[in-house]
């Protein structure tokens, strides 16, 4: 008697749930849809690779271009009327890009790491809650604004300080001005990833050092920073990678002269600013210039991709060490 009524109750309950639309069909459709969304991100990567490399291959298939001279040549004159392989050497663009990336790294890495140590080890919670969002604003300001700032403030400042007082020639478009704003732009990125890594270091490590009589400086530099090193390196690499891909500030402030220079006060052209220059010039899709931006874009993508993968493995290492 009792058994039967229990079974009946369960049956009633089940049919109640089925009637509210929670049936297997719905469930399966949603699962497939959500899976599709999850896999979509892989499609984006595939799309990037296909679209960049298909056009880049079309570029290299042209008789006027040579894959070898592209990577070894030191002259980049794609817009000249004389279309010969010697005019398609990407090294000046890579040189300009790396010059700005290294100089902005020289600004962002010490300042970012210093900020990270301060926020993680020294600042009280109250101070941290005020300073951190303020620093994040730097990362949220559009890059075109940084370009404006470089051109309207930093460059005139450099001209006054270096040219008028010290007699050093400063080009109106120069790599240093662009590097300064790009460096400021990536401080928050370096700071926040380094800080995450430092905060993941267990307190027991710090307390052990304090118990041995270490000062705060010693704990920070000899315990916390080494323990968080893989995360800090990841932050540096990601910051540099971000500087390599930075576009607007660089095309506004650094100019558009592809040249093999070591002088930071010269005008240079980066890979990104070349792409912008051609896109503004409205190059037709099948033309050699329209295709050249994809060869440059593929080079840029490959560089940042490798750096991102390396930094991901570093980040994984510190997550695994202390989780």
């Amino acid at each position: 008697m009792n058994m039967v009524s229990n079974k009946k109750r369960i049956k009633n309950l089940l049919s109640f749930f089925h009637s509210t639309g929670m049936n297997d069909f719905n469930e399966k459709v949603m699962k497939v849809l959500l899976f599709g969304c999850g896999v979509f991100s892989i499609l984006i990567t595939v799309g990037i690779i296909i679209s960049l490399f298909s056009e880049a291959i079309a570029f290299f298939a042209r008789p006027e271009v040579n894959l070898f001279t592209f990577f070894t040549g030191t002259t980049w004159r794609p817009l000249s009327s004389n279309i010969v392989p010697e005019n398609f050497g990407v090294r000046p663009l890579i040189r300009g890009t790396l010059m700005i990336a290294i100089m902005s790294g020289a600004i962002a890495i010490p300042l970012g790491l210093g900020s990270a140590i301060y926020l993680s080890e020294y600042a009280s919670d109250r101070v941290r809650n005020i300073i951190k969002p303020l620093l994040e604003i730097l990362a949220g300001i559009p890059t075109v604004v940084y370009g404006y700032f470089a051109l309207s403030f930093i460059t005139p400042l450099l001209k006054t300080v270096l040219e008028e007082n010290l007699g050093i020639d400063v080009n109106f478009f120069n790599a240093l001005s662009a590097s300064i704003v790009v460096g400021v732009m990536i401080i928050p990125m370096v700071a926040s990833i380094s800080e995450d890594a430092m905060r993941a270091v267990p307190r027991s490590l710090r307390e052990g050092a304090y118990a041995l009589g270490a000062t705060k400086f010693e704990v920070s530099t000899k315990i916390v920073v080494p323990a968080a090193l893989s995360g800090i390196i990841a932050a540096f690499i990601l910051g540099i990678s971000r500087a390599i891909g930075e576009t607007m500030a660089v095309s506004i402030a650094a100019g558009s002269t592809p040249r093999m220079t070591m002088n930071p006060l010269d005008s240079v052209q980066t890979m990104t600013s070349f792409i912008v220059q051609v896109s503004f010039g409205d190059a037709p899709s099948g033309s050699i210039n329209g295709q050249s931006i994809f060869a440059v874009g593929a080079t840029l993508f490959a560089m940042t991709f490798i750096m991102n993968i390396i930094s991901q493995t570093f980040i994984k290492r510190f997550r695994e060490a202390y989780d």
Partner: protein
Amino acid sequence: MENKSVILAPIYKDNLRNRKIIGKIFNILLLISVLAGLFMLTVLLVDIAIEGVPWLRPELFTNYHSRKPENAGMKSAIVGSFIVISLTGIISFPVGVGAAIYLEEYARKNRFTDFINLNINNLAGVPSIVYGMLGLVVFGRMFGLFSKDSWLVQTFSLPVQSGMVNGLVFNLFGIPWLEIHLPFGRSMLAGALTMSLLILPVVIIASRESIRAVPPSIREAGYAMGTTKWYVTRTLVLPIALPGILTGMILALSRAIGETAPLIIMGAFTYVPFLPNSIWDQFTAMPIQIYNWITLPQEDYRIHLAAAGIIVLLLFLFILNGIAVYLRNKFQVKW
């Protein structure tokens, strides 16, 4: 033994003093590095305010770009940015949240899931200009599939046009306002799709964090009632996670509103003297208008009008961020 420690004590003390001095110097260096960033932020904002505030006039909102700086405005750019960003939100929200739900609620912990995770983190680091090139080929040109000499057009003898509107134009079900253009060309839709791909990794990462913050006990309570996974997700997890998801979404959009490079690569125009009628129209956006002004030789454009435009752009950014912070503080549930 005792003697030794007596001898050592003063040395140790001296040493401690030195070590404390080094610590003080280090502390000051750290403060300088924090303040350097904040100092640059202040200088940047003050510089823009000084150059731009006198030029903040109603013409900025009511006029198009003009040959006279006093008359120039950015009406079409403001409208263009607004529509592109709205479309971007509409497109990226379902896909981004769907991916986040899949990864947090459904995906098993295996190599494939690890691969998706790695891929999303990588996409977040791809330069925005690369997304522009992706959008140009995939949405803007659609691999040239609809050009006159493509195999697709040849085999099916499709009625493609060339001229102002390039490619294939047809009305879905014959309804006029369901017009479809293939490829998407330099339209607002192409720009919004590109922006959606660009912010998708950010949306996914933020949504995942918000979904992960919902305690497992809530889900278990749902399962104990005999409900299914999707029902638990839809009625319990999502409503609780929604404020966090929206906050992340708005922050992602505020990044998109300042993005210039992808739209330039996509072929957004710098001079658009009309308002768009449909998502198939050409457009311009605020950062592009500002970039255009910066590159003009006259100081009124280059310095003053550009700064005024930047102030308008930053105001939009602050409003978006304000909404995000409000949502977070108002609806955030602490467990």
